């Protein structure tokens, strides 16, 4: 299991945590990795806490249980931090990528973690600027890729562009807005 990269996404219903996990999984698969992407299905309603997961590996992935000690944690909504769920089960050297206007050192204090790495990016503002709506999921993937180097940005963008064009072919603004948001978050994310 040591070679399987495990990611946990924390968001709220409507922010696109599940979609983010699926987009990342599809793009990593297209780049030749073995992947899993799945949400935790609870009550499905806007605003309720949502978890989604990825496993990414060079080898076939056999396990079919929840991700309980993820090495990478992506937080779409920082108000979830006070529930304690964000740091639950995480190893000391976990990497956190958080959607917030706070700096990495300020966020580190909020998370209460001393080791590992903390990255921050204001993905909500970026999605408001690029899409006119607060859907921070795609920019957070851009930030995640920059923070972890888990795949090439251009590979992710080309695969995601294809997916978005298929779904939003009649609304090219949505496709371009998402791509712009991903690129901006990739540029603006800061870490320590």
């Amino acid at each position, binding site marked *: 299991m040591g070679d399987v990269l495990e990611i946990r996404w924390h968001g709220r219903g409507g922010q696109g945590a599940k979609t983010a996990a699926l987009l990342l999984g599809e793009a990593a*698969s297209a780049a030749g990795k073995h992947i899993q992407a799945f949400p935790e299905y609870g009550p499905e309603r806007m605003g309720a806490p949502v978890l989604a997961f990825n496993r990414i590996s060079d080898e076939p992935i056999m*396990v079919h249980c929840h991700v309980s000690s993820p090495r990478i944690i992506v937080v779409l909504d920082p108000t979830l931090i006070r529930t304690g769920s964000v740091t639950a089960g995480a190893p000391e050297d976990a990497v956190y990528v958080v959607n917030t206007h706070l700096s990495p050192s300020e966020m580190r204090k909020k998370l209460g973690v001393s080791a590992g790495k903390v990255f921050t990016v204001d993905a909500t503002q970026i999605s408001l600027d690029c899409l006119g709506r607060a859907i921070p999921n795609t920019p957070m993937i851009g930030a995640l890729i920059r923070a972890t180097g888990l795949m090439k940005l251009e590979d992710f963008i080309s695969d995601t562009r294809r997916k978005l064009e298929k779904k939003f072919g009649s609304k090219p603004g949505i496709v371009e807005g998402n791509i712009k948001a991903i690129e901006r978050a990739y540029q603006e994310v800061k870490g320590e």
Partner: protein
Amino acid sequence: MAGSLEQETVKFVAMTGNEAVAEAMRQINPDVVAAYPITPQTEIVQIFSTFVADGLVKTEFVTVESEHSAMSATIGAAAAGARAMTATSSQGFALMWEMLYIAAGLRLPIVMPVVNRALSSPINIHCDHSDTMGARDSGWIQIFSENAQEAYDNLIQAVRIAESRDVLLPAMVCMDGFIVSHGMESVKLLMDEEVRGFIGEYEPAYSLLDVDHPITVGALDFADWYFEHKRQEAAAEAPVAEVVLKVGEEYGKLTGRSYGLFEAYRLDDAEVAVVALGSTAGTAKAVVDELRQKGVRAGLLKIRLYRPFPKDAIVRALSGVKAIAVLDRSDTFSTMGGPVFIDIKASMYDLMHGEHGEHGEHDAHGAQDAREARDMQGPRIVNYIYGLGGRDIDLEQIRKVYERLQAIVATGETGEPVSYLGVRE
């Protein structure tokens, strides 16, 4: 096998289990699909109906008002000589109940994906095997899948198995609800022509529409002949295992992925082993790998063909193991443990009483020490019921199961035969 060389270059695609199964149905291109949506199977019907709407299949898609009608319409279509399919889950599966037996009794080779989900009450939409386990005596062939790849592969093979002239029985292909149906995984797909070549053109053995060879379907059949027909139905189960093996081997030649009656994972020299089916088998394999690295002789038997139960092959595969834990994702509420446990125990009875072994002659002497020696033969078997209603089963829980098996081997003490894993008592 024109496609076999090209397979090397076929890439993995990321798909959910439901997407993979719907894709297999598109490639199978059945004559008739009659289906009703139910969580977590809904996507299969939804995606397949878009294939119909887009003209990608020639299927007559019947939108019915219930699963009872779904199975009834599928039976009617199959009796008329069509290659007919449906799909369901849980309560919908339960609503098909009386028609399941009719499909099997009429010997109609219907193929049905089932996305395993708990049964009410209480209401729950998540995975366990209660729905299909209840139908284990219905006469249907039951094949379980570990992941999306297997669900896809099994569905294509099930067409050949069900339609085999030696078999002619309906077959259900099971996958775990949400865990596999909604989880995205890496899957390798076949080309459309490869699937069509593999399953072949359907030539029904009998057809209501074949006026030159008129038949009666669903006739009244009292004490004079009913028993003979049921006896023939039981006889039809006998060649299933052989057909499953033949089809699985042929599929392996086409794809590089061969399938047997079960998967024996690091079982050859295993001292302790878990028996499981569905997605949990994959999680257990990861634990087996860990334990092997520590020098523990751990193994796994993953059941693929559950009905008919391939008893002799399973007994042979498990005969060298000292302690076995059977993991059941459903309960029989009989105080006897889960259904797989009961089957494994019944299968091992002859072995434990020497009829498969070399110590059988001790029985004749009736001496107390010989009896004790005989009683020690064969594996100790315990049961864990786990994961009901989608309760997660993780590596740590399965590690504990293997730890207990090692303790059983060390002490000879089996303890409580039936336990519940991961539940608040």
